[in-house]
């Protein structure tokens, strides 16, 4: 699948939660978009990603 514009290899059937874990990102500080649709946080555990999905993840760091 494409993650933030780069082709990456992950097991098929991976959920958003599992992808975030593999990328070492906290689910509390990210915005996740799959095929241009925002995925609500309460769906991270259920949302399964497919091979041809285009995933965009914005991870926020503190400071303002």
């Amino acid at each position: 699948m494409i993650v933030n514009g780069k082709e990456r290899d992950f097991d098929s059937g991976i959920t958003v939660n599992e992808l975030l874990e593999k990328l070492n990102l906290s689910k509390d500080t990210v915005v996740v978009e799959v095929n241009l649709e925002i995925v609500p946080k309460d769906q991270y555990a259920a949302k399964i990603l497919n091979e041809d999905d285009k995933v965009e993840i914005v991870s926020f760091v503190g400071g303002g």
Partner: protein
Amino acid sequence: MLEVGKIKVFVNEKLSEVGDNSTAYDVRNLIKKDADIVILNGHIIKEDMVLKENDRLTLIKRGEVPTQDELEALLVARHTPGVHEKVKNASVGIAGLGGLGSQVAVSLARIGIGRLLLVDFDVVEPSNLNRQQYFIKHIGMFKTEAMKDLLTAINPFVEVETKQIYLDETNIAETFLDVDIIVEAFDDPGCKASLVNTVLSKLPDKTIVAASGIAGYFSNNSIRTKKIKDNFYLVGDNVSEAQPGCGLMAPRVAIAANHQANTVLRIILGEKEV
């Protein structure tokens, strides 16, 4: 009925009738002889010019505090005509009034934004003054009230509404229902993500301009504005987190804040690309 041989022009934003061969300096000599700055249709003129119908002439005496009536006209004179009307009609919500939010609010007030909705729950603390736009006299005041005080002193023609609440998933949508654009200006990364997620899913017709990675004194040029999707812009270097050894400092925070403010302005003026 307009008299024969007269044209109508706006002098300090007031409709006036003048002779149809009148020049800018003729009108100045008639209305405000001691004005040393003459602005015709938004540009300062150094040579006399014949006035045309609907010209806008602004007469200023340097150093004189203008009346409330004159003030707005004078502020407008610095803005490109056509731009001001759009900016004046815009309504922007700012979530968080710290280093980012206080600077965004000041910049948007200076360009004559129509309406600002300022949301913060916190009070001004001494440590805020290293980068936030408050003064010593504001210490202990709610940031919403302190910012309203500041903005009124800069441009009293901005409609400022304040909400002194802690924003979370339960109140974000109702809070920002009436604004066109939302500026994410929080400090905490969880609050940042929560605001952006909520706006994108519950207020899809709004645009949000967020920031991430603004700490330290890294290169100016590593602060970038990215368009993540049609209604989501992100400012910062994405990595420079505020932490011990990498504090938030006025210059870089202000660079990021003004990326946000200029993005807001560009969106208002129909410039959707970064």
